[in-house]
Every structure is written in C-alpha cells, then in structure tokens.
C-alpha cells in the first residue's frame, strides 16, 4: 500500500533507525541548542558581572540538589529498564519500571518545590539578581521539561500501553523515543547541577 509511510516501525536499511528515533534525535539536537543558549547567556553574564555570588552567598542547598541528581539518574535507569522489559516481552515489569520513573520524577519536582519556596520565603526572586535570574530560568525551564516527560510517560504507562496488544514493536519504539527524551532531561541536569550549585 503506497500510502503507508515506510520505516515507522522497521528501521531503514541504510540509517539503521526507524523514523521516530530519527525525529526524536533531531528534536534533542534542537534542545541542546536551546539549553546551550541559556548556558551561553550564563557565561556572558558571569564574565561581565562586577560581582558574582559565591556558594555561601547563593544559599543554594547543595545536599538537596545532590539528592535530586541521584533521583534523576535513578529515573534514567528505570526508564531504560522499562524499554528493556518490553524487549524481553515483560509488560508488567515495563509498567513497574515506567511507573518508577514517573514516581522519581515527581520526587524531583517536589524537592524543587521545596527549594523554590525556601527561596521565595527569603525574598529571593528571579528579579533579585542576575545570578538568580539565570538560576530560576535554567532550573525552571528544566523543570517544565521534567513535567512534560511525566505527562508523556503517564500516558504511555496506562492508556497508551493498549498499543502493546496490537502493535508491540511500534509501542516498544515509542518507549524508546520517550526514553531518549527522558535521558536528555537527565543529561541537562548533569550539567546544570555543577554549573549552578557548585561553581
């Protein structure tokens, strides 16, 4: 049937990827440029600043953020295990792992909520200084991406998983793409954390 689009499920013989994976990597490349632009802003603003707050002055909670880093790394593992479970034909395991990913992501956001409220209650807002402007913007945009991931994964763990019965390979591919996105979100945090909290 010529109107069906080829390589949505089977990988292309030359590139070795199915369409969705290609599209997701392209999207991630654009996201690299998005966060990269924010990091570039950080560099320019810090270079030109007469005063840049030190660790003590920023009052940022390093232990809490370290916890968040571990939480996100763990969620990346559960995400890839979710995909691996589907590859090994274990639907219940998949649901467990993907559920775990969502849970860990929610923990991340809850910790973030506590961090932000602590800042606000000490009268620290984005407008307080350029450091906090870039801090809130970078972590805020990252947080929005975490939220997006939670929404997509929540769809895939229950209503979306109906596709497993009729098109298991296509569903597995979807999880792989969702996984790529989620690992990227983790990756951004791996760079965000030292830049904002440790330097």
């Amino acid at each position, binding site marked *: *049937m*010529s*109107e*069906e*689009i*080829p*390589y949505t499920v089977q990988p*292309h013989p030359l*590139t070795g*990827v199915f*369409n969705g994976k*290609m*599209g997701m990597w*392209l*999207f991630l*490349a*654009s*996201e690299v*440029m*998005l*966060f*990269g*632009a*924010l990091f*570039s*802003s950080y560099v*320019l*603003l810090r270079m*030109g*600043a*007469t005063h840049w707050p030190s660790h003590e002055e920023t009052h940022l909670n390093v232990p809490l953020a370290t916890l968040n880093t571990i939480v996100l790394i763990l969620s990346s593992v559960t995400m890839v295990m979710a995909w691996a479970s589907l590859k090994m034909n274990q639907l219940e395991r998949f649901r467990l792992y993907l559920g775990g990913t969502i849970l860990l992501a929610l923990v991340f956001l809850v910790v973030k909520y506590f961090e932000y409220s602590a800042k606000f209650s000490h009268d620290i*807002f*984005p*407008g*307080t*200084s*350029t450091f906090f*402007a*870039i801090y809130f*913007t970078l972590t805020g*945009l990252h947080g929005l991406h975490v939220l997006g991931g939670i929404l997509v994964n929540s769809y895939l763990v229950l209503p979306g998983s109906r596709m497993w019965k009729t098109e298991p390979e296509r569903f597995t591919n979807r999880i792989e793409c969702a996984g790529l996105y989620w690992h990227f979100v983790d990756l951004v945090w791996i760079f965000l954390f030292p830049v904002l909290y440790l330097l």
Partner: protein
Amino acid sequence: MSTEHHPHPHLPFWRRYIFSTDHKMIGIQYALTGMVFLLVGFGLIMAMRLQLAYPKSTFPFLEALFGSVNVPQGIMAPEFYNQLGAMHGTIMIFLGVVPLMVGGFGNFVLPLQIGAPDMAFPRINMASYWVYFVGGVIMLVSFFVPGGAANSGWTSYAPLSVIATAGQTLWLFGMVALITSSLLGALNFITTVIQLRARGLTFFRLPFFVWAQFVTAFLLLLAFPPLEAAGVLQLMDRLAHTSFFMPSGLVVSGEMQEQFTGGGNPLLWQHLFWFLAHPEVYVLILPAMGIVAEVIAANTRKPLWGYNWLVGSVIFVGFMSFIVWAHHMYLTGMGTTLSTFFQATTMIISVPSVVILTALVLSLWGASIRYNVPMLFALAFLPMFAIGGLTGLPLGLTASDIHLHDTYYVIGHFHYVVAPGTLFALFAGVYYWFPKATGRTMNPLLGKLHFWPSFVLMNGIFMPMLFQGLGGANRRYFDPTMYEHTLAVQGWSVVISWSAWLLAVAQIPFIINLLVSLWAGRKVSDNPWQATTLEWAAPSPPPHGNFAAVPTVYCGPYEYSVPGRVSDFCMQHVAQEA
C-alpha cells in the same frame, strides 16, 4: 501512473480540508496563509511609504483607516510608524516568506520529488501549521492592545524592547509559537529526506530543490532555539523584572529604571538574536535558489551546470551561516580580533553563494530557453540576487560598514535579495507548480502583465535606497525631513514610494490569475513542462498517497537532451536502455 483508488473511508470536510494530515493540503494551507500575510505586510509598508514620501502632509483617509490615536490630525504618529516598521519585518519574514517557501512549497513538492507517500510525521506536520496559525493570530491581535503592536524593530533590541508597550509581550509569545512551528517542520523535513527517498534515489540524484530545503531545515532546527531562549529571557525581563538584558544604572527620559536590579547585558540579546537571524536570511534564500534551479533546468532543456558544485556550495553555505552572525554587530564595540574573525567568515561565505549563482547562470549557456512566465521570474532572479549579494560586500567589510550600518543602504541590500530575489523565485514556483497542484495552467498573458511592471518597479523601489544610504540617510526615521543630512536624498523617497504603490497595482493581475485559473484555467497533462523530476510522474493533482506504486529511480534529476536519445528529456523513474 494510474489514478489510485484508495480504500480510505471518505473523511468529513473538516478532516479533509481543515485538519488534514496530507502534506499537499497542509502545503496549500501554508501557501495561502503565507500569501495573505505577504499582502498584509505589503499593506503596512505602503502606509509607511506615504509618511516617508510626504512627511509633512495630512491624509484624512489614513486617520479614518487607523484612528486618531495612530494618525492624529492626519499625520502618522511616530509610535505608530514604529509599529508598522517592526511588524512589516516580522510579518514578511516569519509569517509570509518562510511559511510560503518552506511550509508551502517544501511541504507540497518535497515528498513528491523524493517519491514518498507523505511526510514522515503527518500529524506533526498538521500541528506545525496550526501552531503557525496561532502565532499569526497573536501577532495580528497585538495591533489592538493598548500601545499597539511591537515597535522596537523586528530586531527587538534590548533595553528598548524590554520597556516597550504591551504589544512587545505579545510579539514574544507569537515568536515562541512561530519558532515551535518551524522546529516541528524542520525535523519532519530532515527525517523525510533521510528516510523516505524512493528506491534508487541516492543523495546525489536528488533535485537541487530538495537539497536546498534539506540544508534549510538544518538551519531552522539548530539556529532557532537560541532565539526561543532569548525570547524567554526577554519575557522574564519584561514580566518578572529580571535583568538579563538590562544594564545597571539605566536612565530613560530622565527616570532611573528602579524596577531592574541591573547587571545585565543588552549585547546578550543581540548575540542570541543574530545567532538565529543570520542563518534565517539563508533560510530566506536557499529554497528560492532551489526553485530557480528547477525552473531553469526544465526551461533550458539541459542539465544544470555543476550539480556537484551546487550541492557542495549549499552545504558549505549552511555550515558557514552559523559563524558569521556578528557582522550585524560590528559597531557594538567588539575588538578588532573578533570583528576580523567575523569579517573573514563573512567574506568566505560569499564564495559558495557566488558559485551557486554562477552555476545557475552557466546553465543558460547554449540552452534552448523557453521564455514562459516561471522562466521570466527565474531569469530575473539572477541579476537581482547578484545585486543583492554584491551590495552585501561593503556591509561585510568592517571599515565600510562604519559608514553604511543602519542606513538605507542596508535596507536596499537585503530587500534586493528578498524582494526581487526570493519573492520572484516564489512567483516562479507558483506559476511552475500550479499545474501540478490543480491540473490547470495560469494565464500566460496575465503572468507577463504581472512580471514586467514588477521587475521594473522593484528596481524603482530598492535601487534609490542604495543611493540614500550612501548619502547617509538613517533607517527607521519616521520623518526624513527632520535632519539636514537626509534632506539631500529625500527626493528619492518620492520615487520609491510611487514605485511601491504601483508595484501593488502590478500584483492585481497575479491575484486575478491565481483565483480565476483555479476554476477556469486551461486543463493540462500531468507533465506540461516536460520536466524530469518525480513530482511530474504523479497525477495532477496527486491523490492521497501520491503514487499508485512506489517509484524506482534510475538516473539523476536533470536528464535533458542526452545525446542519442529520441526524446529531449527522460524522467527519473523511467529505466534507460543502454
């Protein structure tokens, strides 16, 4: 190719024409919406030209049209002039040219030219159109908020844009929508070209149009996100009073701007903006070159000269376009080391552009040229783009840019490239692919009535701007007679304005032609131009799924006048006898 009978149940009207996932319908939606926005943008500049030609005269009809807030006592207010200026640029680039050229032509032609049934992600394609539409609505609505639309130039430089009226916030949200639409489209195009080429269609057998759209998609994908980031930062500055772009100690009209803590950098905005906006100008020209190449090949009955040079050059241009952006910022106080770096990359990038132009011109050598309407526009593109490109050189050189920066010379330069350059290529594309989309041709007499006055008048508008700029006339002044140094060249403003208004009249034959030919145009075969590329192998208009059977490709895209063959052209999907 037989007409396909597909077993799809008949879709309801709103799924076939409004929320279609078929690349051809989406392409037409983009093209029509883009053309309407081009008219809107043109309207804005026609109003501005009235002010520029006759700054001291009163025009009651203008006050009746735009209201007494914008045109008090019949003379345009400077704030309103600034709105028209900022929105003219924004609408023409982001709502007009790019949607028409990439969303319209790219979507319609590209899958056909690679023998694919549709784009790789049809639903994302549909989403990208509607997000663009929402962005357009936001931009238009911004005219009606208190303070009017954005008025800090299409470039929205900080700190002015940060303290500007509410329309600027809407501009920023509109841009976020438009950028999102472009990103979705770009990843669709790239995936489609890489994954969905027909059997036998290797990269070096692709029509140049596909290469041009492919490179353009990379520019959109990788260059737009920094502007999206910058837009978020400017929104933060405006709404949360951060100081990303607000320097310390800023005083506006005698008032200290206390709501900002300062410490920010206005140049940060410029860097992030131009990081996109420079590749954006290549987005504006590369697909146009692609269209011109296709029209020239079909109407010279010979292969394009230097196909490998064309492909190599378009890739090189795409790559270089990411590292030239600060030539828009020579006068911001950067040291000579960096300005020399950017001058060097800017000079280097002119080389592949010249190679492409040269290859297209050499394609005419010894050709049997058919002077139909698309060919007229394609031929006119060549010298017009040449002028545009050459006038860019004194701007790319730091020394001469000192005198020419922010003058009408700049406006003349870039309009030569985009107006009688890209727009002419777009017209060529419309006349050329109209038969494929409708099964009918447009009227050639009306086409020539459209072409000749347009060609003359485009030069009447933009050539004098080069003189005005060389004479030192600054851009974005709402009343050129306010300053002595611009008075000397004010006479040209009248010539320019009248050329612009007459140019509007010259578009009427085109609009009539387009609309009437949809119903009453002469019906033609599937391949009226006797061209070689795959889109001409599909029926006109192509059905859902495009081809009854996936075509196999046996040869390159421009097998014209091959010695020893009976016919003067051979289509890509037809097997050759040895």
